[in-house]
């Protein structure tokens, strides 16, 4: 490789360094801010009237929205709003009581997780679902399961097709490790890595499957401000360079409102907003949901008088 790896991030004081795509010379068209970049007309994923309850407790009630192809869709809401449950419904981990999920050209009452994976859906989990007994490289390689052509017998006898699989998958996995900056941890067992790194490995595993739709469940949780910035750059890179649509759940609303093209806000399992980040930030219903409504306020007296 002739040019040294363009540094996506400096180490010490964070200096905004050129994103890969910026390195490319080319006409920079000026565009009035706020003008909608053209997303795919047909939504890559659509949820209609989704209701879900566990042992009588209603987690989601009549939630519906669409994710356009190529966009970053933020999913936010205070604690216990049902964000993770919704992601589990999208990815086939939960079966909703009512409603349908439109993905991969078909409507599903329940998404079959393996089917969804074969049609380009990949995801990460809120409390890291890595394969703890395996190394970083093996975890990312497992993301490549669907691209394996050789049968188990060919792998045992290391026949040509199995060898070709191994070489190709290893090369692609190394690229993902390189991008995530975890290349030199490739042989360490995942369970022993620091939290921020485990989050990246899980994202690496999802990216290894080269998804068209990436579902991220709190990818920034437990990270320092600098690590959050680095991860945000990466999500942006994946979306802009590959056109991968992203559904992003996150508590750090600052980053979500900044990254997302479209934001859905849940509160107690109900959709209370579905709009652009700017409008969601000013929406009184959203602010109340977060800051809490205080019915009993009798004038300005505060503190236990």
């Amino acid at each position, binding site marked *: 490789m002739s040019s040294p790896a363009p540094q996506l991030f400096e180490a010490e004081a964070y200096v905004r360094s050129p994103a890969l795509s910026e390195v490319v010379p080319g006409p920079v068209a000026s565009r009035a801010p706020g003008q909608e970049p053209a997303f795919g007309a047909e939504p890559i994923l659509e949820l209609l009237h989704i209701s879900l309850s566990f042992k009588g407790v209603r987690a989601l009630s009549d939630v519906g929205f669409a994710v356009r192809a190529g966009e970053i869709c933020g999913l936010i809401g205070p604690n216990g709003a049902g964000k993770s449950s919704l992601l589990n419904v999208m990815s086939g981990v939960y079966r909703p009581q009512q409603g349908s999920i439109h993905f991969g050209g078909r409507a599903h009452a329940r998404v079959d997780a*393996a089917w969804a994976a074969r049609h380009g859906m990949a995801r990460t989990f809120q409390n890291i679902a890595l394969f703890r007994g395996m190394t970083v490289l093996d975890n990312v390689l*497992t993301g490549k*399961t669907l691209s394996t052509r050789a049968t188990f017998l060919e792998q045992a006898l290391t026949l040509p097709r199995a060898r070709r699989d191994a070489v190709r998958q290893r090369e692609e996995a190394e690229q993902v490790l390189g991008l995530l900056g975890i290349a030199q941890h490739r042989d360490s067992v995942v369970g022993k890595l620091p939290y921020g790194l485990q989050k990246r490995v899980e994202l690496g595993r999802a990216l290894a499957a080269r998804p068209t739709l990436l579902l991220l469940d709190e990818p920034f949780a437990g990270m320092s401000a600098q690590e959050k910035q680095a991860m945000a750059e990466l999500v942006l890179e994946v979306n802009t360079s590959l056109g991968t649509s992203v559904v992003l759940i996150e508590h750090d609303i600052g980053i979500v409102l900044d990254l997302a093209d479209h934001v859905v806000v849940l509160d107690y399992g109900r959709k209370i907003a579905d709009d652009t980040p700017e409008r969601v930030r000013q929406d009184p219903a959203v602010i109340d949901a977060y800051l809490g409504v205080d019915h009993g306020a009798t004038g300005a007296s505060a503190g236990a008088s």
Partner: protein
Amino acid sequence: MSRWVVLVLLAFGFGVVPFVADDYLFSAILIPFLTLSLAGLGLNILTGYAGQLSLGSAAFMAAGAFAAYNFQLRVPGLPLLASFILGGLTASLIGVVFGLPSLRIKGFYLIVSTLAAQFFVGWALTKFSWFSNDNPSGVISAPPLTILGQDLSAPSGRYVLTLGVVAVLTLLASNLLSSQTGRQFMAVRDMDTAARVTGIPILRTKLLAFAISSFYCGVAGVLWAFCYLGTVEPHGLDLARSFQVLFIIIIGGLSSVVGSFLGAAFIVLLPVLLDHAAQGLFSGSLDPGNLENAQKVLFGSLILFFLIKEPEGLARLASVVGQRLVSLRSLRRRPSPRESAA
């Protein structure tokens, strides 16, 4: 274990041992060690790598042994190795059947279906005399061991046959377990929800693990009957044997090919050492009954020790010792203070 260590061991195993070791070493130590290592490897594939606990290894060994015997008996001119493979495949079939419940029940509770296999196969082989060719005593001698005209029935011949079969199957297993199939097994073991979402077919992967594991136990059973005992009988392949194979992978190291061998070596050598120790120390005052109980207590305590102190078994201990040796050697060659501080 690096490539060249394995090659040296194989060269030694095939080149030197057959001419040096005496009959006792072959039949009492080397052949049982290799056979139990293969059974341990089989169980490790299912329990260590795929995370499905099984207490039925001995049943699959018995199924393999009887199937091979019957194929050899009823198919004239069948090459010996073909009966090995057919024995393995029969055990594999039975393994899949008893693996089906893993669709509905997970990991630990699966011991019910593998225990069912253990009792059912044991019962069927004793009750239906067709399996043992209507032999009244139910104990049948193994067929002659000749491959390509070579008579391998002498202890050294049986050892070479066993070593050959075990070496080939171990190579295949380590290739498989380091490839995508191995990763799928471990994914299903570690987090099956995440495995499903990555596109791994959960049931198919579990059944494949059952099939391969039972194949290995089946072939181990054939070796056990043909090369070790010389007789085909379900008696020695009961629940106690399944426990023993489970102990081999706990002590040796779960999800480790090397661990299966270390565990088997430990399980085979310990009683032998205990006997000598007993003869030496108590000059034979310990009656055999108590010796067996002492062994039981020792095994039980070792299981607890390994589970609590070193959950990854001897394999982990060996690799730690190995690394220390390597670092010691490199230190001695260039003892510059800077490097030793790194």
